[in-house]
Structures are given as structure tokens and as C-alpha cells.
């Protein structure tokens, strides 16, 4: 245990992550109030357990892990776990993605909103990997620490999450038509 009065040190490490933690919490819970509760609980737990945090290790992975575990034990988290088993190998059933990416995706300015819906529709195990990789820009190692899964699983989930998001976008009309960008 370090100096239990290390609030300033905790604050300096934890507060800059506030916006990111909230964004991640809201993506997981899909509800503002629940996200707010999650963030508050995360900070309370992290502050309480700060003595067990080993300096020099990854604080971001540590606190994101607390948030994510708090979510998994929440009502929404538990109900998502019922429909979304986290066992590796179950993923094929969980997220069917066609073997071939069908058409070419046209990246346009108004894609953002459609992509948000596509991410929302992803099962939690895929949504969280995609968000940590592409929004938080975590390395595979960091993601594997945060989610307590092997790097191989990070890679396969991430690839499937991206493929599925692309497929959704194509289904909702963002596809290549005769070489021109077109929205159905």
C-alpha cells in the first residue's frame, strides 16, 4: 500500500480519462443515467483500490477494466451476458459475417451516423473491442489487459467487428454502384 492520501496522484491520472470513460460507459450501457452511475462507481472503486495499482503499469487499462467489470455486473451487463456468451468459439454464432465482404464501401461525409448505428448493433464483446481499438486507440496488448482476453481473441474479434460494421453499412445503402459513390 502506498500513501493512502495520494488523492492528488489519483486525480492527476484519473481525471484526464473522464471523457473517455464516460463515452465508453455510455456505449456499453446505451443509457445516460446508467452510464453516469457506472462512471461514478468506477471512480469510487478505483480510488478505493488505488493502493493496489502498481505504479509504472498501465493506469488506463486498469481503470477501464474496473469500468467494464462494473458494467458486466450491472443489470444491463448481466442481461447482455445472457444473450452474448463471452466464450471464445461461440463468436461465429454470435456475429454471423459473410465470408466475402460483398461490395466496396464508399466512405462519405454522412457516414458517421450510420456507423454509430452499426456499432450500436454489435454485441458487447465486439463493440468494446472496436471502441477500445479505434476510438481509444489502445494497442492489442492494452485491450487484452483491459478485457482479460488473449491477444489472439482481440485480433479475431476486432476483425469480425469491423467486417460486420462494414456489412451493416453496405446493407443500409453505402455501397459502390458502377464505380460511383451512391446512397440508395
Amino acid at each position, binding site marked *: 500500500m502506498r500513501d493512502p492520501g495520494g488523492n492528488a*496522484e489519483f486525480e492527476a491520472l484519473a481525471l484526464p480519462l473522464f471523457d473517455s470513460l464516460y463515452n465508453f460507459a455510455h456505449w456499453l450501457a446505451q443509457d445516460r443515467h446508467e452510464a453516469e452511475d457506472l462512471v461514478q462507481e468506477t471512480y469510487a472503486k478505483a480510488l478505493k483500490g488505488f493502493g493496489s495499482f502498481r505504479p509504472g503499469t498501465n493506469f488506463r487499462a486498469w481503470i477501464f477494466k474496473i469500468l467494464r467489470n462494473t458494467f458486466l455486473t450491472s443489470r444491463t451487463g448481466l442481461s447482455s451476458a445472457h444473450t452474448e456468451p463471452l466464450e471464445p468459439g461461440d463468436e461465429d454464432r454470435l456475429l454471423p459475417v459473410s465470408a466475402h465482404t460483398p461490395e466496396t*464501401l464508399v466512405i462519405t461525409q454522412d457516414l458517421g451516423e450510420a456507423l454509430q448505428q452499426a456499432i450500436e448493433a454489435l454485441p458487447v464483446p465486439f463493440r468494446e473491442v472496436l471502441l477500445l481499438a479505434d476510438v481509444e486507440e489502445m494497442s492489442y496488448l492494452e485491450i487484452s489487459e483491459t478485457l482479460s482476453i488473449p491477444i489472439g481473441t482481440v485480433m479475431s474479434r476486432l476483425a469480425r467487428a469491423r467486417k460486420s460494421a462494414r456489412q451493416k453499412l453496405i446493407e443500409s445503402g453505402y455501397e459502390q454502384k458502377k464505380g460511383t459513390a451512391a446512397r440508395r
Partner: protein
Amino acid sequence: MNCETWQAKLDAYADAELPAETMRSMAEHLSGCPVCTAEIVQIMQLKRVTATAGKRYTPAPELRARVRRQIAAKPARGGWQWALGLALAAVVVIGLGLAIVLPSRTAARDRLIAGVVDRHVTALASASPVDVVSSDRHTVKPWFQGKLAFTFNLPELAGSPFTLAGGRMVFVDGEPGAHLIYDVRKHHESVLIFQDRGDFARLLPSSEKEWRSRSFNVETWNRGGLQFFVVSDAAPEDVSALAELLKRAN
């Protein structure tokens, strides 16, 4: 390795998470495989849109205030001791941050320059250094249309010692770019052009524009959202001269 094996590695390549050796072989594969190249461009673009679209939810200011109070509600030191503690912690955090960020940024910059030099050397060592063989800029420039999401101008070379040999696609750190090869006297000069998404500007300080890496001269600059590199074993004046022509054209 067949294309399917590469396909399985595309996401990891886009995330720069493959071992250096595999990153290099993948880049070589990409330069000759339009299917994988199209796929990687899609992944990179999707990554970029996700980075923005994923920052969707903003916390309410009251929540921030509540969390701050929550942290402060566990006071351990009083008065000036607390302030001193905070100041010391800040110094430690800033110091650690600098110690970590500065060398890693220098290392990342050196890697980027080394990567650019590698592309120059690899192209020249190849049996077919360019995919579009032409000394006419009006042939070479349109060749990149549909392959790159940006466009650029190539300079008029009349009256200069340079001739255009041709162009090819290039990838550095997963970024697709244009690679042009110019000849000057008995030397070759590579020009690499990428769209700058902020990473280049962050790595390459504007005060330093010329580099020497493994006896190659490298000049780089940023203009109109594009990052240009000129690489050659030719004299620094020849590198600068080509750089000047490009700057005037763009």
C-alpha cells in the same frame, strides 16, 4: 504466401500490430495486389470514421463536478501540505510524461524516416521499380486516380536536370501514398506523397526539414494537407532542387 493468408492479417497490419518483418512483407505484397490494397484502404478509412463517430457521448458537467467532489472527499493532507503534494505529483507526472513521450516520439520519427528510406531502396532494388512507366507527368498523375483519396501536382521539368521515371503505390505505417521516381544525372530520387492526418505533423517538427538516414538525404515538408518526402543518395543540393520544384507545383 497466398492472398488468403495475407487477408487474415490485414486488420493487424492496419493497426501496425504485426512484427516489423511481417509489416515489410505485407507492404511488398500490397504493392502488387490490388485486392488486398482495396481492402486495406477500406479498413483504414473505416478506422478513421470510427475514431470520430465513436466519440459520441459527452458527460454532463454536473457529473464531472460530482466525481471531482468524490475524489476530494477523501482528504488526507491539509492546507499547504496538500498543495505541496499536488505540486510534487504534478512535477512527477509531467516529468514521467516527458521522459516517456519524448524518446518514443523521436523513435517513432526515426522509424518513419527509416521507413521512407526503405521504400526508396526497395523500389530501386526491384526488377520493376515503377508500375506506371512514363516520363510524362500527364500520364503518371492520372494513374493514381481511384487508388488514392487525394491528389497532387507534378512539376514541369523543362530546363531542370530531372526526368520522371514513373510511379507506384506505396505504404508507410499503413498509410497509402504515391511514390514517384525521378532521375538526376546518374542518381535516382524518390518522392513520396501522403495525406497528412496529423500524425506526420506531430512527428516531424516544422523546424527541421532535412535529415540524413543511412547516408541518404531526406527532405520533408507539409503543404495543403499533404506530407512530401524526397529521398536520394544524390547530393543534398539535388534533393533540395527537386523539393523546390515540387513545392512550387503544389
